[in-house]
């Protein structure tokens, strides 16, 4: 099984440790992983701003880089959802369609494809899980609180395999953090207020680390946390799942 590692642009540039943790975790679980060089962006920042027509070259590039892999895996629910819903390439539509059906967000790849039941990881911390919206409601990584349906959560399922992790209960388990792509600057006031409220829920319940499946949300929360000198840290879920037992 050949896995193509998709590392979104802002992870590549600002959070390389998340890319490294994802790569190491997948290798630890026996995957043959390759990171095709030349990746840029999934195109979502343009598309969500109404400029989907400016994403054609990003799409062609993505299709060219990932067409040959059995699976494409990325540590971002939002970017993966964007590819799943919007990747088209008129010159290579079959390849694009193949990628749309073979791309997975990291945690769903672990639970649904690798069917991981245990992890050699230890992380003794009180952890709050931020369910990022696109992963949750778009990729259905966890049951949405709005629906009358049986609960499940793929990221939680994995975090529970990590020794020492104490997951805190939140008052609003799937409230949006307010990042929202360009929303975070275009609607700065509401975006920051949403971030502050999201953090307060985690802090109220004693979380010392906020984790999630999307670095974009975590980057936003981290920005608010650092500005307010709060001790709570943010970590991508791959970093926790990749923590080794000393």
């Amino acid at each position, binding site marked *: 099984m050949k896995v193509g590692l998709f*590392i979104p642009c802002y992870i*590549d*540039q*600002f*959070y*390389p440790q*998340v*890319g*490294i943790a994802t790569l*190491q975790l997948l*290798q630890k679980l026996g995957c043959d992983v390759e*990171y095709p*060089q030349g*990746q*840029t962006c999934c*195109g979502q920042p*343009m598309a*969500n*701003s*109404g*400029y*989907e*027509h*400016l*994403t054609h*070259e*990003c799409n062609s590039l993505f299709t060219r880089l990932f067409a040959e892999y059995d699976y494409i895996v990325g540590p971002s629910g939002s970017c993966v959802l964007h590819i799943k819903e919007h990747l088209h390439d008129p010159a290579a539509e079959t390849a694009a369609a193949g990628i749309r059906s073979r791309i997975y967000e990291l945690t769903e790849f672990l639970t649904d494809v690798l069917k991981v039941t245990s992890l050699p990881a230890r992380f003794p911390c009180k952890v709050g899980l931020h369910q990022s*919206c696109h992963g949750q*409601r*778009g990729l259905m990584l966890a049951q*949405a*609180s*709005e*629906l*009358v349906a049986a609960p499940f959560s793929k990221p939680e399922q994995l975090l529970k395999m990590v020794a020492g992790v104490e997951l805190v209960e939140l008052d*609003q388990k799937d*409230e*949006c953090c*307010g*990042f*929202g792509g360009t*929303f*975070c*600057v*275009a*609607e*700065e*006031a*509401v*975006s*920051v*207020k949403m971030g502050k*409220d999201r953090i307060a829920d985690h802090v109220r319940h004693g979380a010392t680390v906020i984790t999630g499946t999307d670095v974009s949300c975590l*980057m936003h929360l*981290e*920005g*608010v946390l*650092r*500005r307010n000198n709060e001790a709570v840290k943010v970590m991508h879920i791959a970093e926790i799942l990749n923590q*080794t037992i000393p």
Partner: protein
Amino acid sequence: MSNDHATLSQRFNENEPRVDWHNETLWWVRAKRDRQAWSIPEWEQLREAASAIKRNVLGNLDSYLQEFEAQAISNGAVVHWAADAAEHNDIVTGILKKHNVQRMVKSKSMLTEECHLNPHLEANGIEVIDTDLGERIVQLAKEPPSHIVLPCIHKKKGEIGELFHEHLGTPAGNADPQFLTEAARQHLRKEFLQSRAAITGVNFAVAETGEMVVCTNEGNADMGAHLADVHIACMGIEKIIPQRKHLGVFLRLLARSATGQPITTYSSHFRKPAAGKELHIVIVDNGRTQQLGREDFRNSLKCIRCAACMNTCPVYRRSGGHSYHTAVAGPIGSILAPNLDMKHYADLPFASTLCGSCTNVCPVKIDIHQQLYKWRQVLVKEGYTTASKTAGMKVMSAVLSKPGNYKRAGKMGRWVMRAFPGMVNNRFNPWYKQREMPVAPKQSFSEWYAENKNEDTENKGS
């Protein structure tokens, strides 16, 4: 746009405790809705059924409307057709003038808000008394409703006490909800008894029988319509449901989704005028057939105006209904309003993080967040965007389209952030206003990978 959603919501956020109060109040309604939804094991099937019935309605609207009209006429009602808001207002004014009505009562109707009926009637010398308590409060405050189900949800009880003191003569400083409600009750009772005409909205219009169902908690629609000689019911063309039995689906969904009640206190059926009285039904298009013709946005006409999408929306809860500067606020309003005026409402589809909660609570399963995304594409294509935004997006696209450009720009950007943090951390950067920028590492992931790919990264990491 100086009064766009971002500006108005920034203003709303200047008073943070008030934002917290607004947010918590609406979240409480959402939580009530959840409890009611969970009390019905077949909730998701009900939503599916409602959505399918409305799909059928929208696909056969012409014949259902004709069926409804024929039934209504045979019941003794007078049916009027209005192409737009102006026609609607003229028809209503005409009926009232014919009966020489100068003061009259109106129960809640978002359609009349959409058509700006009140100012039109006032310009014609006809005074309207809104009889829904929340609507009466915002009317006294000379404000539009901020929420389609809870029109004065943005007002605190102290503010309502002051309004009542000024307009209804209640004692200054009394903000006891029960006392104020009783004062409003006495005040409205006088209006009901004097009023010779009453306007109501319509929640459901049954094609099979020509009857209309109006849902209220206060019974104010009934009081108005039964006491007056002339009842004018105003409805959008999309209010049709095929048969009476379909109410069994919609009435179970409406109040549970709206306020977390099993059903509204009154679900009143109006079918024929009483002896010697008149029943007028004004059926309004006002852009709805245009929306019906927009394939991507057609489903928005399934809306039954429950406001569940507003109560759940994390942006609405923290920006207030008035920040949407349209009669129907929130996520649903943001996909309805651009149909009427793309230029004026170009900001609304962007007033969302696309979190998708609206779509999940919608009792008729409108794909609201997907339509917000699609409206963004339409608005940009039609040119309703700023030149600076387009220029910025083109630069972004140029950088991200070529791996070489991206690599150079990334390396340069990170270097600037480390060497000259003031270039990024300044007042021109909206991110930095209340948030720190991420720390720029020396090495990107792709640079790290190029250096380490030939080693066993797993062992290296552990």
